[in-house]
């Protein structure tokens, strides 16, 4: 039962992008085409889940026993940076097309606040390893959901008659705001 609440909460109610403001840079940057959005969401999901597992283990088995909790920020970000390097190498070999499409955004996954945010939130919410993994995967699904919906909206926006001052980023942000409002409707579920 607990897992269902974590899943619904992470995907809809407390959506990482639309409610918690994490992962905005790729959200605004990669969401111009639905295909790239899906690829980005996949890469993020992979790094997010792995990062949560590794950082959790480091927190519980190294940082806490040695009483060096203040090294959390440094160790977590180093783990994430290393994992992104790994994903880059794997992606280059397995799917060079996707690697090209994601371009500069791939190394930028390191600075994706969502990944570091989820790692820290898992510790803050006192999840155990299994709950943390479920949380990470659900958050990644929520991220992907927001990204893909937004990409679809933006593809439409490109074909519309937007007032000159609002063209580009402003209208994208306003649309994101309306999308966020829609997601607020989920708050009664949990």
């Amino acid at each position, binding site marked *: 039962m607990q897992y269902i609440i974590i899943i619904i909460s992470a995907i809809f109610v*407390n959506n990482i992008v639309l409610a918690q403001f994490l992962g905005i840079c790729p959200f605004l940057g990669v969401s111009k085409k639905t295909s790239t959005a899906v690829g980005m969401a996949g890469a993020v999901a992979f790094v997010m889940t792995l990062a949560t597992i590794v950082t959790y283990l480091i927190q519980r088995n190294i940082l806490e026993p040695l009483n*060096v909790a*203040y*090294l959390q920020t*440094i160790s977590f970000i180093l783990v994430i940076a290393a994992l992104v390097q790994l994903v880059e190498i794997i992606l280059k070999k397995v799917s060079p097309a996707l690697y090209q499409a994601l371009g500069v955004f791939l190394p930028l996954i390191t600075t994706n606040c969502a990944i570091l945010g989820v790692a820290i939130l898992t510790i803050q*919410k*006192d999840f155990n390893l299994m709950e943390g993994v479920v949380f990470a995967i659900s958050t990644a699904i929520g991220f992907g959901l927001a990204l893909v919906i937004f990409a679809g909206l933006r593809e439409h926006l490109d074909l519309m008659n937007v007032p000159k001052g609002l063209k580009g980023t402003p209208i994208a942000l306003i649309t994101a705001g309306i999308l966020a409002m829609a997601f607020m409707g989920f*708050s009664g579920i*949990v």
Partner: protein
Amino acid sequence: MAKRESNFINMLLTLFAVTFIASASLGLVNEMTRDAIKNANIKAQQKAIAAVLPKFDKLGKSFKIPPKGETDSLELFPALDANGNVVGTAVKTYTNKGFSGHFELMVGFTPDGTISGYQVLQHQETPGLGSKMGEWFRNKDKPKQDIIGKNPGKVNFTVSKDGGDIDAITAATISSRAFLDAVRRAYNTWKNETDATSGSTPQKDDQTKGGNS
């Protein structure tokens, strides 16, 4: 400016040196701020206790008790007057059912179980909605919301929507339910503890009286 050559040894040494210096400086700053952080936390706690209880002269020894059937303990802070009598007990309680999960409250009870005050300690409830619980439940103009002066042993401390006697925050029913959950947890734990410790005293007095006549 020419950079050092990117061979393996240089890279390894650099990373090692940077991380070492970083960790050392952090260890230093951590030491410097450790006491200040501890004091800041203690001060905040003292302030919360004073805010929820009637006037007292000194604090008795605090202790931790897990609520029935649960593993996370609540902390109870008895407050005494100059003669050592308990004038109130502050209970640091929590709930995990908030809109954003876990949050903590400090609730003050007078010896008969009436709530003398409360303060929200830390929470991540929605600003403008759940976060209103800091002020909502002490509104003197709205007796159906006000919990100060009410006794959870005599009043039904659940939201009116669920058949209880307390009005929830408009549009923030989940936070309100969680808030009352934390208050009930505090009351039940405090009540069990008070009943357990005061159970034996009245009988002793009776026996002494009986012996004299």
